[in-house]
């Protein structure tokens, strides 16, 4: 609806911006917080605030496309009899069947398998489709324990104990009733059509000392075969990572505040946790402090979109990254071909984030059989594989430019920061200076 008056001179309030006004109106109407999918939308320091220093006089670059730049990573070398080896340092993050359609889960498995990396189950258990199509499948052990059973546990290539998620550290989950199909209900032992809450705490352990025994129990049940990861939302990351190592993790997964979610209160997504950038540095500090860097592998996630993000995370000391939202977009989420339907839902392609409500036109975040049918798992799987290949090539390009024969040889010294904030958070000097705010040691 276009206005009849000239609005070009009107000044929008920075405090009461249009989205803020709209939210107050919505809250007054509905009396309940807004639940949505995706990650934080606010501006935060990210890997974009770092730049690589390519090779020049003092460093020797590698020939693109000719000289090999290794991307293979082995995860779970600390205790597991069978660590897993991925051919690219990019894994698919845990997203539940329930939040996502069976077709989407299958596609993620296909895509990951095609490029030789792992995918992850989620709240709701393991489906035969994803097990069947995933060469390397990480099985999540969550507070809800929906669908948890020892048979699936023993089928997993790794186990990920989820303590928290970046989008909602300290929060539980909610799968709204409209997404509870017969199959989802059965897998979770609950009636169809009711809201399914996922607890925010595990039901049978309360602190890091208990967790250590819990990890041992999981190892006992799986005969010490597979790696055990511990996933935490980024908050008190230094301590959390150290406690995860003490609890016996083979791999620690740190998920930054901008990480995606299927359904969380907007207030939670935007206001709890710390960004992936400082969390990565804190996690590496914690591992180094214990002498466990590279001994216990570190996977970081939350807002990874490009090979640049991957390369910067690795340069800061991570062993691999994990992607959620970007994989959904690669499959077709928010694609312009659904524009009419996005409009019918009151939004537009590029802004759709109602992954909680099950009416996703792309057939990804839905349990509606007709919508789910729209997603061709083979085609979507190929897109995921293409996207992962592209990220890998980009990562190698940057690593070669810095003269590295292995992407994990990238190091903090290969980078500078563009902003004072990023410099302080990443402990990387501000470009053109040797200054790191708050840091007086030797870089």
């Amino acid at each position, binding site marked *: 609806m276009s206005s009849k008056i000239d609005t070009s001179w009107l000044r929008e309030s920075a405090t009461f911006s249009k989205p803020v006004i709209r939210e107050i109106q919505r809250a007054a109407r509905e009396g309940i917080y807004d639940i949505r999918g995706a990650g934080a939308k606010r501006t935060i320091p990210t890997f974009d605030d770092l730049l690589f220093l390519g090779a020049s006089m003092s460093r020797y670059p590698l020939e693109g496309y000719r000289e090999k730049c290794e991307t293979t990573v082995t995860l779970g070398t600390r205790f597991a009899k069978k660590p897993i080896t991925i051919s690219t340092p990019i894994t698919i993050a845990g997203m539940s069947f329930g939040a996502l359609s069976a077709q989407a889960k299958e596609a993620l498995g296909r895509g990951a398998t095609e490029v030789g990396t792992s995918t992850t189950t989620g709240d709701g258990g393991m489906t035969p489709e994803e097990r069947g199509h995933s060469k390397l499948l990480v099985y999540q052990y969550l507070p809800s324990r929906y669908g948890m059973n020892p048979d699936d546990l023993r089928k997993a290539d790794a186990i990920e104990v989820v303590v928290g998620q970046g989008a909602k550290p300290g929060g539980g989950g909610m799968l709204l009733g409209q997404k509870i199909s017969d199959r989802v209900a059965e897998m979770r*032992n609950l009636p169809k059509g009711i809201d399914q809450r996922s607890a925010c705490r595990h*039901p049978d352990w309360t602190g890091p000392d208990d967790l250590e025994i819990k990890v041992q129990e999981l190892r006992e049940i799986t005969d010490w075969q597979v790696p055990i990861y511990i996933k935490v939302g980024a908050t008190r990351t230094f301590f959390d990572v150290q406690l995860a190592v003490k609890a016996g993790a083979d791999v620690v997964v740190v998920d930054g505040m901008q990480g995606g979610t299927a359904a969380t209160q907007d207030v939670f997504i935007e206001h709890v946790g710390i960004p992936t950038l400082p969390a990565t540095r804190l996690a590496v500090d914690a591992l180094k402090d214990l002498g466990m860097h590279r001994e216990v592998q570190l996977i970081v996630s939350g807002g990874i979109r490009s090979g640049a993000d991957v390369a910067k995370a690795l340069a800061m000391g991570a062993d691999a990254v994990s992607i959620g939202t970007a994989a959904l977009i690669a499959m077709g989420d928010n694609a312009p071909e659904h524009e009419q339907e996005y409009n019918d839902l009151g939004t537009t392609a590029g802004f759709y984030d109602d992954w909680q409500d099950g009416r996703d036109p792309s057939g990804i975040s839905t349990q509606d059989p007709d919508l789910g049918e729209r997603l061709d798992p083979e085609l979507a799987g190929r897109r995921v594989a293409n996207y992962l290949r592209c990220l890998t090539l980009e990562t190698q390009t940057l690593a070669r430019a810095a003269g590295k024969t292995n992407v994990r040889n990238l190091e903090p010294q290969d980078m500078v920061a563009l902003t004072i904030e990023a410099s302080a958070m990443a402990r990387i000097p501000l470009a053109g200076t040797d200054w790191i705010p708050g840091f007086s040691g030797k870089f």
Partner: protein
Amino acid sequence: MREFDLQNAEVRLLNQALHGSDLAGQSIEVVNPGGKHNVAAGAQFETQVDIRGHVGYYCAGMNQNARITVHGNAGPGLAENMMSGSVTVKGNASQYCGATAHGGLLIVEGDAAARCGISMKGVDIVVGGSIGHMSAFMAQSGRLVICGDAGESLGDSIYEARIYLRGEPTSLGTDCIEKPMETEHIEELKDLLNKAGIKHDPAEFKRYGSARKLYNFQVDNVGAY
């Protein structure tokens, strides 16, 4: 009969044996458990396991098929996520016994501490004595029988699980209410008490379950959270 003396042997050895079919159908004696953790975790086959003494955390975790008896007390997380078979404790059980268990029968002849049957998903639990606070929190399905009393907030946010309580609850949790005992319930309770070998008159019990008011979020219920 096979004997494992945990004073000399690692728990690992016992558990590894319980994951293989070699011992299926046999009876196993575990002596000197000494409060160790994860004793008989992940058993897979129909065996009779007698543990002579006290156990620590997660004894009989994720049990499938085995019949496990602890002749002593059990630490936290006894029979957590059990799938089938049975677990009996002659003494008392600590927190979260039967947590998230999907099936089988858990019998605690003494008392069970807090959060007994938390998030249970189909298991049957019979407690000869009393249970602690927040028991059957978010209990999804299965049946919990308590022959003594229950602590605060029994059955908070309960889904479809059924609770039979002979004594009194200190308080009921959110959305948990008393429900009428019909013949069907008397019958199923009689059957559970029989299986547990505990003698009480089913008529002395009251039944509790979900009022189902919180199944779908409604603004008017926010006060309940």
